[in-house]
């Protein structure tokens, strides 16, 4: 798996220098990801969000958010509840289309494709940009069919191919050994952590380029949460991950980049975005600093 990590060689040197400078003062205490596993990160945007605003009926939920999501990196979005992180996430794969009162404006380009293009096939977009929800949602089907259903929907019908893919993704999420003897039993009988890993496997089966995760660990017990977190770590470099989390320590442990959202003038906006270490150790904005120190939010 390691061999698939993006090579470091074309990451701009000056960028790394800047981060190291910022990190210098107290790097001994860093739990940050740049030490643990970051060589993946080329700052090469796969998603560019420009001036994204989002309304629910008359209420503004997101105000003018612009940021780039970098390929192969884990980007964490932090901030208090109700500041639009989840809305932001669902705009990226156009899940906001499902909510009739929701209006989105601005631009999102995904590999230079305009996500809001009305001619774009949303099914294909969502195959490329997968999403994991806060609460694990295994379908009321067998473990195997949970993974097969979306695959068949996207045109994979040969049973041998399906079996192979099921085995592969269950292996990827570390579930194969636990469930290989009961692939045909109901997925809803799995434990919470296993269910969440199954959901991740189900999303990975479609070979997405980006994985959006909306607080994937918050409904799980600490041990399952740890397992899922390790799993997310292992996705670095293979997939681009955007994760919303309330767990600052977790964001700090796993993310390469972090964005801090806050409610400003009754609408969520992006206060600060940068390398994870910089956000946590040398925040540029006083709100970020207050939130990270725990004095606000």
């Amino acid at each position, binding site marked *: 798996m390691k061999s698939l990590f993006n090579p470091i060689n074309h990451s701009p040197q000056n960028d790394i220098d800047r981060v190291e400078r910022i990190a210098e003062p107290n790097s001994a205490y860093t739990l940050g990801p740049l030490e643990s596993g970051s060589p993946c990160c080329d700052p090469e945007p796969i998603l560019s969000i420009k001036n994204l605003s989002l309304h629910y009926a008359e209420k503004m939920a997101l105000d003018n958010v612009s940021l780039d999501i970098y390929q192969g990196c884990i980007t964490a979005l932090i901030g208090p509840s109700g500041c639009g992180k989840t809305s932001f996430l669902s705009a990226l*794969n156009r*899940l906001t289309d*499902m909510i*009739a*009162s929701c209006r989105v404006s601005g631009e999102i380009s995904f590999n230079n494709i305009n996500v809001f293009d009305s001619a774009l096939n*949303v*099914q*294909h*977009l*969502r*195959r490329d940009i*997968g*999403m994991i*929800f806060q*609460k694990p*949602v295994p*379908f*009321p*089907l*067998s473990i*195997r*069919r949970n993974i*097969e*259903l*979306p695959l*068949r*929907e*996207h045109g994979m*019908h040969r*049973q041998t191919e399906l079996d192979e893919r099921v085995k592969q993704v269950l292996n990827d999420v570390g579930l194969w050994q636990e469930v290989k003897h009961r*692939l*045909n*039993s*109901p997925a809803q009988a799995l434990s919470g952590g296993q269910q969440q890993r199954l*959901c991740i496997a*189900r*999303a990975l089966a*479609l070979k997405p380029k980006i994985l959006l995760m909306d607080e994937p660990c918050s409904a799980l017990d600490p041990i399952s949460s740890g397992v899922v977190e390790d799993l997310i770590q292992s996705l670095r470099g293979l997939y681009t991950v955007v994760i919303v989390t309330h767990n600052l320590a977790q964001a700090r442990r796993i993310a390469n980049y972090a964005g801090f959202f806050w409610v400003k003038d009754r609408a969520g906006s992006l206060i600060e975005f940068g390398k994870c270490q910089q956000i946590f150790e040398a925040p540029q904005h006083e709100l970020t600093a207050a939130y990270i120190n725990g004095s606000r939010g």
Partner: protein
Amino acid sequence: MLKNKLATLLIYLVAVLITVTFICILADIIIHGFSQISWGYLTESPSDAGRAGGIAPIIVSTALIVFLAIIIAAPLGLATAILLTEFAQQKTIFAGFVERCLDVLASVPSIVFGLFGNAFFSLYLGLGFSILSGGLTLACMVLPILIRTAVEGLRATPDDYRFSAAALGITRTTALVHLLLPTAMPAIVAGLILGIGRAMAETAALIFTSGYVDRMPDSVFDSGRSLSIHIYDLSMNVAGGDSKAHAAALVLIVMLLIINAISMGLAKHWQKNRIISNEIII
């Protein structure tokens, strides 16, 4: 404290009252009707205005009428429920109007349906007094029940399924067929049973549409007498027909129970199969 005890007592009293009423009715029917039941009663035609003979043609007519009603109403009902829940996402004016109409339709007295069926199906469409007119009229009558229960069932399916399915690039139709409908199936079947029950028990709507000829029907264009009309006729118009009326009522109740059990069993079996099996369904 005392207030609490009184309330508890009251609640128990109500529960006992309901149970006792049901048991009394059932006991009355069994005591008076059971002695009349025999193989002959189920397989022979009635004679002497129902005082003698059996109820074979009446059972056949009833089955035909109910079958027609459900076969017509179930797809219409399911389609309407899907439209209201899945495709009219928010409460549009149209969806609200349709639901209001259904509520009114559900509370229309059955005799009104009977008169409508007589005017529209029997006279205007020229179907006359026939099992087909009866079935169509009953279909109109059970439609609101079927739609209401199917809508409730579909609304009760977790939105998480819809969002998760969409996030996997699964189309609405696939999600509906593979996730939402199977999940809502118990509610849909419950509605179906309610509908069948209402259709089997119907008298007023059928007197003017399917008629009360007690011959064995040759086709659905023949007039046919349903069990409930037979019971009504025996107890109201035929002197000395009471015990046969009780027997017919017993048959009706047993038929209802059997249909109930079968549909519940089928729904459970089907749902379980969907969850466990991995056969190729798409």
